[in-house]
């Protein structure tokens, strides 16, 4: 049985995890000269992932699906700094920290939604016990 409710949160969770990694790299490289901060547009990444265009072209059912390709399916974009620094670094630590916190919160939200659907399903399976 295909459970669409799971799929959506699973996709969101995976994208959040990937964005978390991206933002972590930005914060880690806050003092690296010439490092350019990157981020993804979450809404478009999610719609791409939902639309199925995340998958690779396959000619056989035995071919591997691209569902866990690291960084696959969405474009990373360079952040435009509000104040550029002299060493070519475009990381603004406070912006990145705010985005990181927001992303972590959204991850937790997706997690609790997923948890809720699992609970609901278990409730139904156990016959309301």
């Amino acid at each position, binding site marked *: 049985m295909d459970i669409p409710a799971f799929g959506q949160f699973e996709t969101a969770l995976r994208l959040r995890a990937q964005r978390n990694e991206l933002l972590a*790299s930005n*914060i*880690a490289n806050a003092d690296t000269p010439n490092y350019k901060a990157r981020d993804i547009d979450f809404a478009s990444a999610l719609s791409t992932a939902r639309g199925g265009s995340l998958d690779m072209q396959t000619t056989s059912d035995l071919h591997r699906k691209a569902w866990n390709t690291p960084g696959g399916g969405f474009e990373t974009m360079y952040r435009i700094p509000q104040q550029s620094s002299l060493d070519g670094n475009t990381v603004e630590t406070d912006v990145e920290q705010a985005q990181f916190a927001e992303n972590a919160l959204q991850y937790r939200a997706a997690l609790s939604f997923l948890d809720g659907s699992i609970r609901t399903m278990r409730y139904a399976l156990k016959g309301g016990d």
Partner: protein
Amino acid sequence: MSLFKVFDTAGSAMNAQSVRMNVTASNLANAGQVSGDPNQVYRARQPVFTSFNDTLSGQPGGVRLDGVVESQAPLQVLYQPDHPEADADGNVYATNVNTVEEMVNMISASRSYKNNVEMINTTKDLLLQTLSLGR
């Protein structure tokens, strides 16, 4: 699972920042050094950071320390003929460590280090919550 990679990324940044702290400490410790021979004087050192990309995905990864370079800033020449180490002209050479710059460096390094620690804590929290999913 890509969340685990955050530990590598933040770990490499913490390593780089602690080297920076170390270099700053040695600069500050040698801030008052003078010598009669300009080649013997301590010169301020600075670490050089570069970022490296993840080999598999090409996504940005952590920080790599490329090396430690010596500052090429000119030494301070002080005319002190009665200094025991003064050269034939009565000059001694003082190190080119800029104390104010080093203090700022130290604060910046400790801030960045703390940021990375926080990042690890948050990610650890997220992972632990994910592990208890559906309980």
